[in-house]
């Protein structure tokens, strides 16, 4: 029936990865130098993969659009990385991390993959420490941990509020070691614009040099995409400005299925927007919810007041009230929806935009009173500084203002247990794949997944693919290579020469972002999704007719770069809405208004929707394929965080 085979092993869940590893084919050390692998994107997944493949002896060609791999957006992850080390002796285990991740994802992930992730988590910490990643430590010299949303154990390792930075610099340094050894040939300021298929297999990519504008082709034995997520489809998100879907979208249009595109995470604690010309939103780490208390005024007339003048009994600590067990540490989707409902009631605070005040307080006065300002500074100093720089307010004295914002995308390229897409020889790792987080990712799990994929999983499964496939070299004069190059040049020509150039790429990006945020953001419903699909179709036509790119293409041209990315976001936005429309249930971050309990909780429909929606490109419109999810080891339950 389905074209989708997860290739997941069977048998005892705790033996599956071990069994699979034994069954994977190997390549002997002396032969590895005969193989060439392309890695696109050098964030946590890509850099760790480049390092590991290089160490093993393969020839790696890597590409990133930034001026250095060290700038990848993984660097901005703040709070931490989960691992089931149970160093705190609070009952953690592989099984518990597995269960928490399945539950956090609202039972929309593949059990085998999630269990493997939990199994590998501890090893990631070992690896990072050996590279010199300066995790926080206790006075005893042992590693420190903190707790995070969606868990009742302390399993999060952290480096102040810069865990992503430190882990990325660790992976980048490991990759740099392999650049020095000659096994990794890296090109920065290079954007992948097309994937090259030969006999149905991924054999190369077409790249635009962002400095000269030159278009070149690169061939290899297989290709791995580590190109991150697509939250920037919403225009305003916590992602770095350059983050885009173009690589994954090119793969989709060549036959890689796109899974669960509507599963996008809205992070509850971001600094609210203050005006129309804002270019991005900044996250305040979820770790702040450990010690900060979220509240809104009980009375609407208090919303304009100085928060310090609002009496204790007039404050509604709504997460503590609604979810006494997890309180401020409920998962992100639950917290975000609660914040939205408070603001929808008119109890929001902060700057009024379009007649709405979108914000609630995240208050640190109790913890400052309890442990002192110095201790708070040691834990969260850089986050507090960042907040003050952006907002102009001192969070040691005034509560922070926060509001949810798009932050992470669980959806992405469909992959099997080997992280291979539906295109032979095309792998996807890190946020670029749809992976382990189901319908909602738990905090501190993105870094874990990116590094598990890059250090431990993809190096083995890629080797297996190379060992099993006899691949003839592909020359740059191969007709499929020439065709891919021509397609890229045509597309650039179209972007540079719209019939009636009028509007900038940003104009369109803001438009599609607003449509998606309204119809496919924190809450969705049938009618508005249908309307959004029509609006996006019209916007797409408008874009190709009127987009205006100044300058020339054979030069550094950031306007052209943006235009290409926005064109892909528009198409992806359409698919996000279709996916959201098709899934007539609420689960995790996907909240369909028609399918919510009276208290706002998601009403999941396991009978009809316990599947991964994998969309297949076709010129007549995307085709839905389903990977049915089987639950042998966890029993899907109603997520209850009360």
């Amino acid at each position: 029936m389905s074209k989708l085979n997860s290739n997941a092993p069977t048998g005892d869940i705790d033996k599956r990865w071990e069994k699979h590893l034994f069954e994977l084919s190997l390549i002997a050390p002396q032969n590895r130098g005969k193989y060439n692998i392309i890695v696109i994107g050098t964030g946590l997944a890509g850099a760790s993969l480049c390092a590991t493949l290089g160490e093993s002896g393969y020839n790696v060609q890597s590409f990133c659009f930034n001026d250095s791999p060290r700038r990848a957006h993984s660097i901005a992850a703040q709070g931490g990385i989960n691992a089931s080390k149970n160093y705190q002796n609070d009952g953690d285990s592989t099984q518990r991390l597995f269960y928490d991740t399945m539950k956090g994802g609202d039972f929309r992930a593949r059990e085998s993959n999630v269990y493997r992730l939990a199994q590998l988590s501890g090893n990631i910490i070992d690896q990072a420490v050996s590279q010199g990643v300066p995790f926080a430590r206790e006075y005893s010299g042992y590693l420190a941990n903190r707790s995070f949303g969606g868990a009742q154990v302390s399993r999060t390792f952290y480096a102040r509020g810069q865990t992503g930075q430190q882990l990325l610099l660790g992976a980048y340094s490991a990759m740099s070691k392999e650049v020095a050894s000659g096994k990794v040939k890296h090109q920065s300021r290079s954007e992948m614009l097309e994937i090259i298929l030969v006999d149905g297999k991924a054999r190369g990519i077409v790249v635009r040099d962002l400095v000269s504008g030159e278009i070149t082709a690169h061939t290899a034995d297989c290709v791995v995409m580590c190109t991150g997520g697509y939250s920037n489809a919403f225009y305003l998100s916590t992602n770095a400005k350059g983050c885009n879907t173009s690589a994954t979208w090119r793969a989709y249009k060549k036959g890689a299925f796109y899974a669960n595109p509507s599963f996008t995470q809205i992070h509850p604690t971001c600094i609210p927007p203050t005006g129309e010309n804002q270019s991005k939103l900044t996250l305040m780490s979820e770790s702040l919810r450990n010690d900060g208390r979220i509240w809104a005024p009980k009375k609407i007339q208090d919303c304009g007041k100085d928060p310090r003048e609002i009496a204790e009994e007039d404050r509604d600590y709504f997460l503590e009230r609604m979810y006494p067990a997890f309180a401020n540490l409920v998962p992100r989707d639950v917290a975000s929806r609660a914040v939205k409902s408070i603001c929808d009631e008119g109890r929001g605070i902060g700057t009024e935009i379009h007649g709405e005040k979108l914000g609630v307080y995240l208050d640190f006065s109790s913890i400052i009173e309890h442990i002192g300002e110095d201790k708070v500074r040691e834990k969260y100093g850089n986050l507090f500084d960042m907040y003050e720089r952006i907002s102009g307010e001192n969070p040691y004295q005034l509560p922070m203002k926060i509001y949810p914002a798009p932050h992470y995308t669980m959806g992405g390229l469909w992959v099997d247990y080997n992280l291979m897409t539906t295109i032979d020889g095309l792998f996807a790792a890190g946020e670029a794949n749809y992976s382990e987080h189901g319908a909602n990712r738990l905090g501190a799990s993105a870094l874990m997944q990116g590094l598990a994929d890059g250090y431990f999983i993809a190096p083995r499964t890629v080797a297996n693919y190379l060992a099993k496939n006899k691949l003839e070299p592909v020359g740059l004069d191969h007709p499929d290579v020439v065709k891919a190059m021509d397609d890229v040049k045509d597309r650039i020509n179209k972007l540079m020469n719209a019939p009636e150039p009028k509007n900038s790429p940003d104009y369109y990006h803001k438009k599609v972002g607003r449509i998606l945020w309204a119809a496919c953001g924190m809450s969705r419903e049938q009618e508005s999704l249908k309307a959004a699909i029509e609006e996006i179709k019209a916007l797409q036509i408008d874009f190709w007719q009127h987009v205006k790119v100044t300058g020339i293409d054979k030069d550094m041209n950031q306007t052209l770069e943006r235009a290409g990315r926005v064109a892909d976001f528009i198409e992806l936005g359409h698919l996000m809405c279709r996916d959201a429309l098709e899934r007539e249930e609420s689960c995790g971050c996907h909240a369909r208004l028609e399918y919510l309990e009276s208290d706002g909780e998601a009403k999941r429909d396991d009978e009809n929707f316990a599947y991964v929606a994998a969309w297949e490109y076709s010129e007549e419109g995307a085709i839905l394929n389903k990977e049915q999810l089987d639950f042998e080891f966890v029993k899907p339950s109603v997520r209850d965080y009360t």
Partner: protein
Amino acid sequence: MNFTLHIWRQKNAQSKGDFHTYQVDDIDSDTSFLEMLDQLNEQLIGKDEDCVVFDYDCREGICGACSLVINGHPHGEKKATTTCQLYMREYANQNELWIEPFRADSFPVIKDVLTNRDAFDRIIQAGGYVSTNTGSAPDANSQLVRKPDADAAFDAATCIGCGACVAVCPNASASLFVSAKIAHLDHLPQGKVQSDTRATNMVRQMELEGFGSCSNHRHCESVCPQEISIANITTMNRLL
């Protein structure tokens, strides 16, 4: 708020650049510096002109991509802040802004105010790592690290590799950048094993790239958005 901008425009590395003057009006005080430049670029697109090219990515002060010298100060005058984290409310009393690239021979201009900082990558490749391979690590708690050492390592490791230290230095020295990595790894038992060769190799690469030496002007420390201490340079020199 209204601003007169004098922006360095340069076609490419080979050509000569000069300042061009632009006017941007009605800028909200909560607009970030780079958002103000975004608005200028939207104006330029409207006038069929090529946009001003500048580096940016995270816009939250951590990726190290953004640069710019603003009125003579790398990352502007505000302490401990990258350009992307500057807000126009800081410029309430300055309505004329001079915007230039980071200037150093080892950071050649690619276009306008955007420079090539690949030299930093090559310095890291020369030794800014621990030679550990994936899969060979012992349990993370098998080697204890004194908390003050871990904290000192973190303080050095927090460098974002932006290059402001080079841009402000009269010698265009990269000593603060190089020493931060050397000191970060020297504070930890995992990194200490290779400290001597690491320092020698990284400093040699710094010299090969054409960066100057440190002669204690200490400007680097004062412009560093991460407030990396020049004490790291002492650590580096001790290891050479």
